[in-house]
C-alpha cells in the first residue's frame, strides 16, 4: 500500500494568525481518508491549500510524488486531484449534462487554433466528453435529470452534481468538502453507499471533510483529526473515537459553542 497524497509540514498564516501549522498526514491509495475536527479547526483551510485555492505559507503537498503546493487550482485538477465545494456549487443555468461536460472536457483537450475555428478534433473532443458524462451521471443517479437546469434541482441533487463535475475530470484522488452538510438522514445514508460504490467503480482514493460523525465512522478507512490548526490524532475510526485528546477537543469545542 502506498500514499497517494502526503501533506508535509503544511502551514498557513493569515496576517499574524496561524490558521494551520505544521500539519503532516498521508492519504493511502484506494482508501477513504477522513479529515475531521471541531469548527474552526482548519479543515477547509487545509483543503484550500491542497487544491491550490490558497497559497501555503509553509510545507509541501506531495501528490503521486510531485510537490503540487503553489500550483493554480486548474493545474492541480489536471494532475488528477479534484475537489467539491461545501455549498451546492454548480453552473446553475446550464443543464445537468452540460455541467458535467464542462468538467469532462479536461481530459479531452484540443489545440488553441482548433478550439477557435472548430473542426474534427474539436467535435471529437466534445463527443468523447459526452460519453464520459453518461457514465458519471449513471454512477451518481442523475441520468433522469440530464436535461434539467442545474439551479432548479433539489439541494441534495445539486450536491451530487457537484461530485459528478469533479468525477468527470477523472481524478485519482477526490476531495469532498462536507458532502453531507444540509442533507437529511436518509440522503446521508444513500450518499455513503453511493460513495463506496463510486470509489470501486472509478478506482478512486478519497479525502473527505465531514461533520457527520456516523457517516465518517462508517465509510472511512483512516481518520485525521485537526484542532486549532494542528493535527491532534490519526488512526482507524475505532482508535480515533477512543482517543482522549479527540474527545476533549470535541467536548471542549461544544462547550464553547453552546
Amino acid at each position: 500500500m502506498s500514499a497517494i497524497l502526503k501533506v508535509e509540514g503544511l502551514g498557513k498564516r493569515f496576517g499574524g494568525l496561524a490558521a494551520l501549522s505544521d500539519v503532516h498526514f498521508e492519504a493511502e491509495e484506494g482508501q477513504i481518508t477522513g479529515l475531521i475536527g471541531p469548527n474552526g479547526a482548519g479543515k477547509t483551510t487545509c483543503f484550500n491549500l491542497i487544491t491550490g485555492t490558497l497559497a501555503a505559507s509553509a510545507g509541501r503537498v506531495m501528490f503521486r510524488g510531485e510537490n503540487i503546493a503553489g500550483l493554480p487550482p486548474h493545474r492541480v485538477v489536471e494532475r488528477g486531484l479534484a475537489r467539491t465545494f461545501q455549498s451546492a456549487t454548480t453552473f446553475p443555468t446550464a443543464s445537468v449534462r452540460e455541467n458535467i461536460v464542462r468538467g469532462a472536457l479536461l481530459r479531452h483537450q484540443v489545440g488553441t487554433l482548433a478550439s477557435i475555428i472548430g473542426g474534427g478534433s474539436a467535435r471529437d473532443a466534445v463527443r468523447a466528453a459526452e460519453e464520459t458524462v453518461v457514465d458519471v451521471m449513471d454512477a451518481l443517479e442523475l441520468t433522469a435529470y440530464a436535461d434539467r437546469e442545474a439551479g432548479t434541482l433539489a439541494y441534495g441533487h445539486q450536491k451530487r452534481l457537484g461530485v459528478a463535475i469533479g468525477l468527470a475530470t477523472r481524478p485519482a484522488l477526490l476531495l469532498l468538502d462536507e458532502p453531507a452538510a444540509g442533507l437529511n438522514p436518509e440522503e446521508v445514508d444513500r450518499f455513503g453507499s453511493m460513495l463506496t460504490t463510486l470509489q470501486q467503480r472509478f478506482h478512486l482514493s478519497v479525502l473527505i471533510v465531514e461533520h457527520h460523525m456516523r457517516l465518517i465512522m462508517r465509510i472511512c478507512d483512516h481518520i485525521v483529526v485537526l484542532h486549532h490548526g494542528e493535527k491532534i490524532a490519526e488512526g482507524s475510526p475505532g482508535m480515533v473515537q477512543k482517543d482522549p485528546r479527540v474527545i476533549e477537543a470535541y467536548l471542549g469545542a461544544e462547550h464553547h459553542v453552546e
Partner: protein
Amino acid sequence: MSDTSVTSPPKRAGLGSLGFALCVALLALVPWFTGSVFHFHIAIMVCLGAMAAAGLATIAWVGQLSLAHGAFVGIGAYTCVLLVTRLDMPFLVGLPAAAVFSGAVAYIIGTPLLRLRGVYFVLITFALNELFRLVMLEFPSVSGGSSGIAGIPKISLFGWELRDQSQVYVFTLLMLAAVMALLWTIRRGPLGRWFSAVEENMALAESSGIPTARTQNMAFVIGSGIAGFTGAIMAHYIGFISPVTFAFQLSVSYVIILVVGGRLALAGPLVGALFLVPLPEFLRSAQEYQHIIYGVVLIIVLRFLPAGLTALPGKLSQWRRSGE
C-alpha cells in the same frame, strides 16, 4: 435557453432559430427591394454595429464588460488605414493585420487587466479608452490629431474597388456572416463551454480544470480582434477617422446594442443592431429625441428583459402559459 446545449436541442427552439434565420435573411434583402442608396447605407451600418457588438459579446461571455471596445475598433481602423495609405499595402492585407494587431494589444494588456472583475474591469477599460484618445491626440503625425485622417481610399479587393454602396454591403454582409460563423463554432466547441463555465461560476470552473485566466484572455483577444477587424472596414467605408471617432461614446453605443440584443445569446448583437441602428430613421421627425429613446430603451430592457430582446419570444410564451 442557450444555444450551447447541442446535446439537447428542444424541437421548438430548433424551429424558432430557423424562423429567426429566415427573418434575418429577408431583412438583409430589404435594400435590394427598395433599391435606395440610403437603405444600403443603413444596412452596412447595421452589419458594422452587429460585428463590433459580436466582439463585445465574446468578452461578455466570460462575464466581463469592456468600455474600451471603441478604442479597439480604433486600433484596427488606424492599423489598416496607415498600412494602406502610408505603406501602400492592399486592403486585403490591412484588414487581417488590423484584427491581428488589435488582438495582440488585447493579449498584452489582457493578463493584468482581467484580474479585475465586475465594475472594476469596466472602470479600467473606461480609463484606457480615454487614455487611447488622449495619447492619439498627442501624436498628430500618426493619428491626424483632432482633424483626423480624411480621404481614406475605398475598400478594394485584388485591385477591384467597391464604389457602390451595394457592393460594400455585400462585402460587409459576408464578413459579418464569417464572424458569426466563427462565434457559432466557438460556442459549440470546447472553448465555448469554457467561456460559459467561467461566466457562470469562476471558482467551480477553476477547480474543474479550466484555466480561467487564459480562457478570459482568449475571449478578450478574440473579441478585441473582431473589434479591430470591424474598425478596418468601417474606416475604409466612411473614409474618415480621428481619435474622437473612437471615444467613450462609441464604446457606449456597442454596450447598448449588446445589452438590448442580449448579453449571452449568440444572436444578441445581431438583434440589438437590427433594432437600434435603423431606429432613428423610423423616427426621423423626432430625431432630436433619438438618444433619449436609446436611453429609455436601454433602461426598460435592463429592467424587464435582462437577457435582452432575444429572450422576448421565450418570455412571451412563458407569459402566455402562465396566463392560461
